């Protein structure tokens, strides 16, 4: 049929954004800075972040609440409001600088080139619009297709994200679906227009633990099948373990360590990463083990501490750390980058830890944790 052919063509020609040569990474972020101007001062939420992402690769961004990971992903996508936000640095997508683009310029890219899955599927679906309309909506405004064809696509999308009876679901409203189902719908919406880059901003934080793994697996399959690049933002190292190619650990608006996932888990260099790993409870630990913690709280981003921003909470801290901020630089292994003067697992790091242990630094005690807490009446 003639109209069906026309639709096919328009679906393909919608990809107006020129692809870069294959040796240029899909996304290059260079010393990105994002600050919020508030009454109390300037909050430097993202403070000089540099990374790049190849096509079809996944990057996990890990950090505590308030370390700037969500701001970073929204900033790269250009979704932050204009007011009171100061951005600098460069964001290159397909080799083209988009860091300074206005929302009107970015709009054709949103959905078709880059898309985002949000944290809370309870609030990120419109309560008064049917699932079907919410999926077909972006298809209809990005592509020149009929609503009937958009509906066919929506059914296929729902099927591919593992929703049973997609025909029936199309007519349902968000409140009729469970949290996991809604997050599947969110994923279907995000991938509807075939983006090359998918941001998943804590996609499982508000979900049941049993559903979390399903959603993460789904994201992974979709990412592989569609050869998308994916940035998985989370506060949970367990979420990114084994699911991402690389991991970047963020602290106080900066990347403090970046490495291939396996390397990061086996040889953390930055004391913060080590402390995060140590704070995951392990099945093998004895009952009533005290959980390892990181003392203190994330630094104030209006008046960050001098030197290394993690120094007030670090078990390896030396005088140098309180004065000079370590740069993010590759270690001897090449791909493993970290920002630390006394990296974990090196002679300098060990010496620093021992001297702090002798001096009785609080962070060391908390870091050691581990030993069994005596509890009365329990053998």
């Amino acid at each position: 049929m003639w109209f069906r052919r026309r639709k096919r063509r328009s679906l393909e020609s919608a990809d107006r954004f020129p692809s870069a040569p294959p040796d240029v990474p899909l996304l290059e972020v260079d010393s990105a800075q994002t600050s919020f101007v508030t009454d109390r001062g300037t909050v430097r939420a993202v403070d000089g972040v540099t990374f790049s992402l190849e096509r079809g690769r996944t990057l996990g961004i890990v950090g505590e609440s308030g370390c700037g990971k969500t701001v970073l992903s929204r900033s790269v996508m250009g979704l932050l409001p204009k007011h009171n936000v100061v951005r600098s640095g460069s964001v290159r997508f397909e080799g083209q600088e988009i860091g300074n683009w206005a929302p009107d310029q970015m709009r054709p890219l949103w959905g078709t080139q880059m898309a985002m899955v949000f944290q809370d599927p309870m609030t990120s679906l419109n309560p008064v619009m049917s699932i079907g309309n919410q999926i077909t909506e972006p298809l209809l405004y990005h592509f020149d297709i009929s609503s009937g064809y958009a509906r066919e696509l929506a059914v296929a999308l729902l099927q591919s994200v593992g929703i049973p009876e997609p025909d029936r679901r199309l007519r349902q409203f968000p409140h009729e679906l469970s949290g996991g189902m809604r997050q599947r719908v969110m994923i279907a919406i995000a991938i509807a227009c075939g983006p090359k880059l998918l941001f998943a901003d804590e996609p499982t934080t508000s979900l049941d633990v049993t559903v979390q793994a399903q959603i993460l697996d789904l994201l992974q399959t979709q990412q592989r099948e569609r050869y998308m690049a994916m940035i998985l933002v989370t506060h949970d190292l367990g979420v990114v373990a084994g699911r991402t190619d690389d991991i970047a650990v963020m602290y106080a608006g900066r990347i403090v360590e970046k490495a291939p996932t396996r390397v990061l888990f086996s040889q953390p260099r930055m004391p913060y990463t080590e402390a995060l790993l140590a704070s995951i409870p392990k099945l093998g630990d004895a009952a009533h083990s005290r959980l390892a913690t990181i003392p203190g709280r994330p630094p104030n981003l209006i008046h960050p501490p001098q030197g290394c921003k993690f120094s007030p909470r670090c078990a390896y801290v030396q005088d140098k750390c309180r004065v000079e901020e370590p740069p993010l630089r590759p270690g001897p292994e090449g791909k493993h980058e970290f920002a630390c003067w006394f990296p974990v697992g090196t002679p300098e790091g060990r010496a620093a830890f021992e001297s702090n242990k002798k001096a009785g630094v609080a962070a060391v005690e908390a870091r050691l944790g581990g030993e069994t807490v005596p509890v009365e009446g329990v053998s």
Partner: protein
Amino acid sequence: MPEPLPSPAEELATEEAQEGLPVDAGTQEIAAVIAVPGATAARRRKKPFGVGAWLALGWLVFVIGIALLAPVLPLKDPINWSDPTLKLQGPQWGHILGLDQGGHDMLSLLVWGARPSLEIGFGSIAIGFVVGGTLGLIAGYFRGLIGELLGGLFDIMLAIPAVILALAIVAATSASVTENTGSHVTNVTIALAIVSVPILGRITRASALSWSDREFVLAARAQGASHFRILWRELLPNVLPAMFSIAVLGIAVAIVAEGALAILGAGVNAASTPSWGNIIIGGQGNLSEASHIVIEASIAIFLTVLSLNHLGDALRARFDVQEARI
């Protein structure tokens, strides 16, 4: 006679009995758990409207019906027919609602009077709904300068007493209309529409402000939706319930306000167009000897306003609960 279907609880009891299990408290407990979701689902789906709401709807349909059918109803002409000998007479055979101070038939006055009253009530709010709603939506979505300016405009308009503002607008727009004999329906409609704009605008703005902070608006933006799409498809459907519940109240207020303007001499021209408002004004001079004129017109307004308010509440209760269930 067909046997009634067993309830889930009864089904469970028979099942357990067949399996040789005792029917005890446990059965009832399980049955209660089984029974509840179905029951609530059924209640949600049906949620009957209530007698009051049906009565209100019935009255409104009746009033709108007779207003529309006034020309074909077997009524005396409200302006040209009069019997001065019967003026101020109460209800009687042939004039079941009595006659007014000019000897006109009250029944036909009230039926014909429903037309301008309803036109003004619905017309002014319809205009206010569209204009105020649009401005409020824009003000709530685009914060910044546009939002501040529109918000300020609403506040300024609200600071002027509504009756005085309406009077001034009627006075300004009716200069061309025959002097001192009142105004056209259109003038009053426009005046009340302008008065209603800031009220509807503010409600819409407040609602749009809170809805546009929701993540689904950001999600739509991240999918490349234009501002217009977000306003029209994401925000408007969520804001409409709040707008409707205020608008329905607004219709009632506008009908009463037409009467208030009539009292102040800025209502609809009584000599050419009887309205509920100017019937009351005409009858107030003879309140002691012929109270039926004022009472009958007041009852017409009262019932209509009451119906609108009640219907507004019922509609809100029916449509506004979606959020609570999420």
